[in-house]
């Protein structure tokens, strides 16, 4: 069973290593990418089943006992996130086959993707704060390179902003970890959970909590700290944007939820109220930004920020229902966001541009593809049978239950505005006739000639989109099952005794 906890890290790492050995063989790298992500998905599902059946799993790397060594823990929340990482990894690996150009492939696109997935899984599974820092850096370095790979002007400028702000947040993280070690004498999260509740200088703990809020806030792209995201997410290839939008900000939100449920709960009245204000502002600024944009991926980038607001809102309300809502929101949003970015890539290929004003006529030419866009888009806006509706319903109910009417009002308004921005994409790219002034009439055929490597290429683009859209519908239809999962995960988050016992039990084993 202990093997399971390290497999989601070992599989991508081994895949990357083998791909590096076959550096000059692109076809080997492509197949390794597929095999590695499939393996990751299988291992993560296995881990998820183990956690669901037997409760929280923990292992001590190197057999060094708990507060001293590095612990890997998987509770239901982490396990769900790892499964989604595997799923998105596979979807994007398939999508990359037909969309990433030869030059990027020969500069190590596939190994980098694997290392990114390894960093994400590591961040979800670790039970040690310093180790979390290390996984964040692994994730960031690989994402820097993926972002800048190709070296176009927009990419480099976006990457500079991304690198600067994320490195700043890493420096704050490091300082916070150092101070926390000075205060508590440990960095194992389960051990910290016990020791921080006994610390008398609660002011100091709250100060540290604020430092972690800033650090993870930058990674999660919450209100005043999100500027790196819309500056960079629309620049790299679509597959890279998709994996970034699906997973990277969610790792930040995951860290926020983990730290503010397990460690910093001594002054909930202050910290979580602040988080609630941040959540509201994040939602509003995100959605207003999205409404103001006129480029497919920029609209979606701002929607990423707005969604982060919803997830953080559940954490801020800090009730079982609210946290379950957060977990459920994350679960379905990862699928929806990745899918929307993948759709934007296909729309770009069909129209030859991502500017909404120059796109058009997609509904008339490809009605089935238009439907594939509508499923995640309407789910994002929260239209009933789809998954996003149930996530927002839970959060709104939790808000009403906690009598935070203001945040409920904001959440509902933001949902309406989300619908507006999705309608804008629909109107511009799909519904309105093709702009006459451009030479677009011949464009699709020209594009098809470019991708004439065949139907295979188009298939690799469409299949992941279809599967993710089907998943969105399934989560919506079987919302009860998924919401029960989220509820159990939220209970585990709110009552850390099982978590602590699992880690310390691993100590004596």
């Amino acid at each position, binding site marked *: 069973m202990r093997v399971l906890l*390290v497999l989601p890290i*070992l599989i991508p790492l*081994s895949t*990357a*290593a083998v791909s590096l050995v076959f*550096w000059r063989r692109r076809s080997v790298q492509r197949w390794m990418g597929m095999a590695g992500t499939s393996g990751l998905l299988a291992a993560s599902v296995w881990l998820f089943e183990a956690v669901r059946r037997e409760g929280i799993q923990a292992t001590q790397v*190197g*057999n060094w006992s708990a507060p001293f060594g590095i612990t890997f823990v998987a509770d239901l929340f982490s396990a769900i996130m790892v499964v989604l990482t595997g799923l998105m990894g596979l979807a994007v690996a398939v999508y990359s086959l037909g969309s990433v150009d030869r030059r990027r492939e020969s500069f190590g696109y596939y190994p980098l993707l694997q290392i990114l997935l390894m960093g994400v899984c590591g961040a979800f599974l670790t039970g040690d704060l310093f180790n979390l820092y290390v996984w964040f850096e692994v994730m960031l370095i690989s994402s820097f390179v993926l972002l800048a790979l190709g070296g176009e002007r927009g990419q480099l400028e976006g990457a500079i902003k991304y690198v600067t702000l994320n490195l700043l947040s890493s420096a704050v993280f490091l300082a916070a970890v150092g101070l926390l070690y000075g205060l508590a004498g440990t960095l194992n999260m389960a051990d910290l959970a016990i020791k921080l509740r006994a610390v008398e200088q609660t002011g100091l703990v709250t100060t540290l909590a604020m430092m972690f809020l800033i650090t993870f806030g930058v990674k999660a792209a919450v209100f005043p700290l999100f500027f790196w995201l819309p500056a960079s997410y629309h620049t790299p290839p679509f597959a890279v944007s998709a994996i970034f939008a699906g997973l990277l900000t969610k790792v930040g939100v995951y860290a926020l939820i983990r730290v503010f449920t397990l460690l910093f709960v001594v002054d909930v009245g202050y910290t979580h109220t602040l988080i609630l204000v941040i959540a509201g502002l994040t939602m509003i600024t995100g959605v207003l930004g999205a409404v103001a944009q006129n480029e497919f991926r920029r609209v979606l980038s701002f929607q990423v920020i707005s969604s982060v607001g919803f997830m953080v809102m559940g954490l801020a309300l800090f009730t079982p229902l609210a946290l379950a809502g957060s977990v459920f929101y994350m679960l379905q949003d990862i699928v929806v966001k990745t899918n929307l970015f993948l759709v934007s890539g296909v729309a770009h290929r069909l129209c030859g541009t991502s500017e909404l004003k120059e796109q058009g006529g997609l509904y008339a030419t490809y009605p089935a593809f238009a439907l594939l866009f509508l499923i995640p888009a309407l789910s994002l806006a929260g239209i009933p049978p789809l998954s996003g509706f149930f996530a927002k319903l839970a959060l709104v109910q939790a808000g009403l239950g906690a009598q935070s009417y203001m945040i409920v009002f904001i959440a509902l308004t933001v949902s309406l505005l989300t619908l507006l921005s999705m309608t804008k994409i629909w109107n511009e790219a799909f519904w309105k006739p093709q702009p006459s002034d451009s030479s677009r009439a011949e464009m699709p055929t020209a594009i098809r000639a470019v991708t004439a490597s065949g139907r295979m290429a188009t298939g690799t683009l469409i299949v992941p989109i279809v599967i993710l859209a089907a998943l969105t519908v399934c989560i919506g239809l079987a919302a009860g099952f998924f919401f029960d999962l989220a509820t159990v995960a939220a209970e585990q988050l709110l009552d850390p005794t099982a978590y602590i016992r699992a880690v310390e039990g691993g100590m004596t084993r």
Partner: protein
Amino acid sequence: MGSLILSTTARFLMPLLLLFSIFLLLRGHNKPGGGFVGGLVAATAFSLYAVAYDTNAARRVMRVDPHTMIGTGLLVAIASGALSLIAGQPFMTGQWGSFHIRGFGELYLGTPLVFDIGVYLVVLGVALLDVFSLAEEKS
């Protein structure tokens, strides 16, 4: 480039540096040293060669592509950690064994050394990748 003094000394220094890097690697088990430093010293050996001649010559002397070296190093390191999984212990638990070699005595060896060899290869590969790509960009 083409300085006679530099290229002659480089040829003599390189084997010395490489031997020294292996010495550091083996010494690192319980004294200062180890795979990281060893890898860096080995990287200086090849970098010196690259400065004295050119990067193509250094690549020829190395015979292995830096990428392949990184990949191999990673695989060696993973294998050393995964050995304990087969033994039913948590990942990366040290596995030890002693061997008797005639005329030499008891030799006590474990997986940390294997891990260090992996680190050595990865560091060597990464450092050379950096040096080579920067040097080749200029010319």
